[in-house]
């Protein structure tokens, strides 16, 4: 690998298929084969080499454009919580096992602890703080409170992210099984799953009644 090497965690995690790995490791001067193997629209592949110190990145965070500096090894979770002091997203296991740090990246649910900060360059990140619309809680957030879908509240932001994503992608009426599937990766130690399911069904009902 040359000095211009760029290596992203996402590129590696995408799978061990040779082409994407080679492509993501390839420098600007490598051959056309690598360029063909990836989508030119992928902003990750267009990134320049970063590190070892802090490097800037642009992202949209909860609807606002932000330019921040992050170390190449910093996770999105560390960026949010330690650097930006946006602490609604919780750290519980720090290895993708519990869903407490779930955020939306371009609308998809992702563990912030398993995502490098630089992997969200050019992307839209939504945390629990971004679920409200100009200060007004979303119908899902309201249902969580009204139906008591939280006790200690430490899993709540991750649960809300998983269920919000389900609500925005689901077509037609929701089933319990769909919600159980959506939160299968969200652990709650107080035991609020039933109320989370009820709150999500209630928010979905409210939406379909509109």
């Amino acid at each position, binding site marked *: 690998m040359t000095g211009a090497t760029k290596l992203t965690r996402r590129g590696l995690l995408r799978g061990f298929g040779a082409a994407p790995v080679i492509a993501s490791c390839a420098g600007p001067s490598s051959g056309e084969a690598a360029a063909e193997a990836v989508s030119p629209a992928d902003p990750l592949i267009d990134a320049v080499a970063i590190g070892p110190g802090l490097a800037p990145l642009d992202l949209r965070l909860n609807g606002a454009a932000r330019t921040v500096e992050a170390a190449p090894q910093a996770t999105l979770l560390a960026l949010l919580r330690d650097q930006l002091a946006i602490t609604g997203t919780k750290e519980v296991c720090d290895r993708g096992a519990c869903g407490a740090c779930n955020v939306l990246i371009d609308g998809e649910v992702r563990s912030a602890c398993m995502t490098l900060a630089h992997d969200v360059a050019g992307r839209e990140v939504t945390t629990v703080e971004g679920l409200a619309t100009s200060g007004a*809680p979303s119908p899902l957030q309201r249902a969580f409170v009204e139906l*008591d879908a939280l*006790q200690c509240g430490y899993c709540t932001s991750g649960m809300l992210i998983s269920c919000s994503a389900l609500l925005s992608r689901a077509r037609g009426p929701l089933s319990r099984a769909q919600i159980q599937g959506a939160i299968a990766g969200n652990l*709650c130690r*107080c035991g609020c799953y039933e109320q989370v399911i009820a709150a999500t069904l209630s928010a979905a009902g409210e939406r379909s009644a509109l």
Partner: protein
Amino acid sequence: MSQEEDSLTKNVRLRLGFADQLREVTVTTPKDEPRPWDADSALTVVGQPTPRVEGSLKASGAAVYTHDVRLPGMLYAAILRSPHACATLEHLDVAAALAQPGVVAAVPLAKVGDRLRFAGHDVAALAARSRDEARAALSAIAVRYRPEPFVVDTLEAMQPGAPQVHAAAVSERRTEGDEPGEASGGAARGNVRLGPSQSKGDHKKGLRQAKVTHSATYTTQVHTHSALETHSLVVRWEDPRRMTVWCSTQGIFSVRDEMAEIFGLKPADVRVITEHLGGGFGAKFGASAPGSRLGYAAGELARRAGAPVSLCLDRREEQLCTGNRPDSIQQVTLGAGADGALTAIHVVAHGSGGIATGAGVGRSAFGVYSRCPNIKVESHDVFTNAGPSTAFRAPGHPQGAFAIELAIDELAQKMGRDPLALRLAHVEHAVRRYQLELGRERFQWAARRAEAEARRARGARIRHGVGVACSIWGDYGRAKAAVVTVSVGRDGAIFVRNGAQDLGTGIRTVLGQVVAEVLGRPLAEVTVLIGDSELGPSVGSGGSQTTSSVAPAARNAAEMVRAQLAELAARLLDRPISELSWGTDGSARAGRRSLPFRELCQKIEGEAVVASATRPKTYGAHPMRYPGGDNYQIAGVQFAAVELDTWTGELRAAEILAIHECGRTHNPLTARSQVQGGVLLGVSYALMEARVIDRRFGQVLNPNLESYKIAGARDLPAIDVVFCEVHTGANSTGAVGIGEPATIPTAASIACAALHAIGRPVRSLPITPDRVLAALAGQDGA
């Protein structure tokens, strides 16, 4: 009663009891105590399902937990831990770590020559400008260990010649999370430390009289709390004699006292703040974790660095060092006469809380089947080189309930008796009997038992099973421990202040409801401030005592405020106070004249009307005798239905009916959540969770949340929660606890249902497919 005592008390007639068993009872209360709420009290706010008042903070991400505290100049701490199951520390030098990037302070947590008794034991701590720098610098600490023989298996540790975990006697360490009672005596034999026994009658004689006996060994696993927010604290020195501590704790005042003791400060000079905490389940009393000196580490690092220090354990540390529910090996022997009446219950339990004490098995075997005349329960601690146990939601009880309840079912099977009928024949507690009978109907016990047996008889692949088990817990509401302050300002603003912490149970909301009820104002007008030691003395949230200690104090303070407001109103309306009444909208009325609340408040002389109050000791009114204990015994029963795939051995909890009581249910919405949570914890304990420790290397293999399995949304049974409200007349609001009772009988009821489905017992928790398949294949006990 002496004249002096008489002048301090009064008698009130209350209607007490439950369901259709209500009666007039005379209760003696202190003279200044308001008339306790009883069955005739028509309340409009207390008892209504009420969303928790901090809900929107938690659902918006704005709630600040200890992990979220960010202070200017704050440093991050990390701890070096021994990798050995047992080792002597031969060399330790933290100086080199100070030269690492970002490191500001380092302190040893062990001395050369110390025996480090489990893998995860504290060695040294340091603080750096970032978490990454702190963790990276740990490897620069110079340390050398001399590994020693160790034992991590409970049975092995009991053998003569096993490596000795503790060289000297170990005194029992109790927290507010433990059930009140005597600490164990402590005579030791090898790694076995003899515990207290509970005894009545003569169990040996009872066994001699028996026509049928059942004797078997039941084992349970180590269960970790796995609270989502790890143990954490942030320490900021305000000056050399004063500190502020943000701590994820169930006991603000036990943190205050511990920090004051460690650093030689006056308790009043330590301020502790816990605005919100991400679960505790018994493991979060005091500044330190049971297996890690977090309070000293964070405080000393902050002192040396001259900067605030945040110490948040990572998940691995949380699973290793912060407590667990001990395992158990319980030898249960039951005897019954020809008529089916129990003649004896004898339990000998050994359990290991690792390097700590506390492996008792609760009071189920002693207190529930109280018609049995001869009972002896002995429980002993076995030390092993593993992380220390600590109180965990109903310490001892779930493991004790599992063994005695499954043994009762096996005895019933042997005698060809219905296990529910056998229970009813031995339960004296009127509420528990009522609950068992209610459940029998509601769960369709007879029909479901018959259906399950028919399936088993015809060899169906999918089998069903139905079981039942009971809980016992005491009303530990504490007198004079919590002081609540209520104030009403000239602008009508109502504040409630107390230094309690909200574990997630909803105490903030309950306090608001109680005060709103007394003052006749909407809950939205009441601001509840808790979570800070400066807000007045309070109790730790353990032993199911928060609501029963704090809510009556809140009522008493609110009543005093109302009395002052009434006096003011009487003056303004120019009527004698005896004519004054308080409207449900908070207005003061006398004759045809009334004064709305706001107008009245405007006439307050000075800023506000303020009163502080506590609660007296439990009046202990109804019923007068509490089978199973000296104070009021909280009753609960759970019925379980399981589904078993005989091909795969997978056993699922399909349905749980949880019938409980918490005296007067103050907030049915949050109480229901708490019971559901207790049930789910029990399901997880029954079927999934087990800390796995490698015998050869003494290492925990699953200190995480991916291979330590806790129940998820797909493991959720249908949970039917029924509150059977009991008017005990115990205190001014009638609150008794619910947190612990809710999780006690779940695993037991599932094990009994598993016996019903399989036809043979699985006598070890968790009930995993391999054990189920072994039982199906004919191995008793699996």
